[in-house]
């Protein structure tokens, strides 16, 4: 299923509404990250990746690893919209017995490729998979995508993986850094500065693309570029707005780890619905 850019923008908005609703029902969870990643996940699942939601273990599929597992509401909402499971199930998020665990568990839900939450290990898992495709299985047509947070780049494990992927020139590996500049204790540059981030990845042997992470065309272009580069892994530094689409959450790191109450959810949904169909790349609307 490959949606056009206007269709993708519309879909991302629906996914944001699902995120708000499921977080409100759950009563806990992370709001800012999932809303900020909605465009990237929508582009991946509805345009970029070669997948079959009705056959999650399809042998020829592209593979998606979520490294910053706390943003999983966006993955659940995107997967439900893509047809991996019924959207109604989104309302079970974080409940006892739910397949939608607070942080993703591979064995609970078909379509998840990994279990994550503790930060820093998703890039390695994606790199291991990409290594297998490139050097052992000789499956050059498949690609491995991974999303990391920017605060997550504080973890040493990430840079071990960056060195590894650089050494082995894992060209079927496409990583996204959700560059929203916030982490729990404040801005990334206050907590533990990441810049020069582009220079860091380049020096590890990666092809680096910097984009507006809310611009569907840029997201799609960056990944086509990545697939065309056959001698290096690619990292897409995607500049995003935490809480994107809900004005009172945008840019506010306090929304990192909390869910909206019913009043806030109502406001948020109104905001998102008003914007529907009028989304601009700047995120400003009616």
């Amino acid at each position, binding site marked *: 299923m490959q949606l056009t850019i206007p269709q993708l923008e519309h879909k991302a908005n629906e996914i944001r509404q699902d995120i708000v609703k499921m977080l409100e029902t759950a009563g806990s969870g992370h709001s800012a990250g999932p809303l900020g990643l909605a465009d990237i996940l929508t582009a991946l699942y509805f345009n970029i990746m070669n997948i079959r939601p009705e056959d999650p273990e399809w042998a020829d599929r592209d593979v998606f690893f979520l490294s910053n597992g706390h943003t999983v509401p966006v993955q659940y909402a995107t997967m439900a919209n893509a047809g991996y499971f019924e959207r109604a199930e989104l309302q079970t998020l974080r409940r006892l017995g739910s397949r939608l665990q607070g942080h993703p568990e591979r064995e609970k839900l078909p379509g998840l490729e990994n*279990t994550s939450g*503790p930060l820093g290990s998703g890039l*390695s898992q994606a790199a*291991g998979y990409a290594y297998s495709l490139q050097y052992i299985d000789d499956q050059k047509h498949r690609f491995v995508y991974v999303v990391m947070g920017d605060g997550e780049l504080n973890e040493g494990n990430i840079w071990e993986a960056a060195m590894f992927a650089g050494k082995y020139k894992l060209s079927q590996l496409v990583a996204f850094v959700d560059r929203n500049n916030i982490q729990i204790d404040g801005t990334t540059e206050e907590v533990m500065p990441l810049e020069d981030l582009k220079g860091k990845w380049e020096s590890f042997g990666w092809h680096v693309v910097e984009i507006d992470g809310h611009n569907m065309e840029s997201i799609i272009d960056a990944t086509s570029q990545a697939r065309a580069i056959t001698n290096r892994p690619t990292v897409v530094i995607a500049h995003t707005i935490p809480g994107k689409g809900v004005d009172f959450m945008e840019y506010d790191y306090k929304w990192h780890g909390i869910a909206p109450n019913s009043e806030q959810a109502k406001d948020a949904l109104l905001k998102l619905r008003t914007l529907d169909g009028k989304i601009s790349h700047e995120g400003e609307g009616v």
Partner: protein
Amino acid sequence: MSYQLNPAVFDDDVQLEPIRAGFGRGLKAAGEANEAIVALCADLTESTQMHLFREAFPKRFIEIGVAEQNLVTVASGLARAGKIPFTSSYAAFSPGRNWEQIRTTATLNNQPVKIVGSHAGVSVGPDGATHQMLEDIALMRVLPNMVVVAPGDSVEAEKATLAIAENGKPSYLRLARDKTPIFSTADSPFEIGKAYVLQEGHEATFLGTGTMTYHLLVAAKILKEQGIEVEVIHVPTIKPLDKETILTSVQKTGRVITAEEAQVAGGFGGAVSEFLGETLPTPILRIGMLDRFGESGAPNELLEHFNLTGPQIAEQFKEWKDKTPRYHQGF
């Protein structure tokens, strides 16, 4: 039916070989049998004996460098791609350094990632306490889904490697650096989850894992010469524990010694104590490292320094037995 010991086990010139050498052979054999097997090492390929696999299957060997967190997480990704990854380093570093990664990406994720920790125990020798891993049994056996195996000699290590290659589960294989006596034979059985009665007796049950089973055999021989017959059971699989074999023996003897080259707290002695405490409360003497670190020295000096040799165990047992009641069923 009964376990055939190496007839030369008590000879002065009993064959010695590092347990890790058996792993190296086993991994190569496993790789021949199943092409899904891949091997990853953190810059210790010869030391952990993975070079045999690397030479045979260069395409399926991955050098990770000194990065143990990456070691197991890359392995987790390879497992998702349908591979059976064996990772190796020194036990002090893996699982010593990367426990959370093992917990999340191997056991909670339930992928058949194999953690091979070489150089476990004080018999590592002169490198000292930093490299003498003693807490690995405790760290690995508390993880749901994890299988924990500590082979007793190099011959058994080869069989254990082949077995965990095909068990479909995250597994920890504990290896030792120094040459140790070979007490089993090529024909001795090995099955994950099984313990083996090496010698029968009624005065006590001696449960050994890894390198310490040999020392229990020596202790039992000394005791037998003094008219004290103890049962020696080799327990290469610490998790899942062979409860039936242990219980059958303890019901007969009413006294237990455990022996391991590891912290007894949380270790093999801990596992046996937990089981018997719930099932058949029995006095237990746990031989091993008693809430302290090792230090530099020759392997044999260190074993003696920490009271881990056969003659020392025999003495400790006699002293302990004289002041400890025997518990029987119905107590």
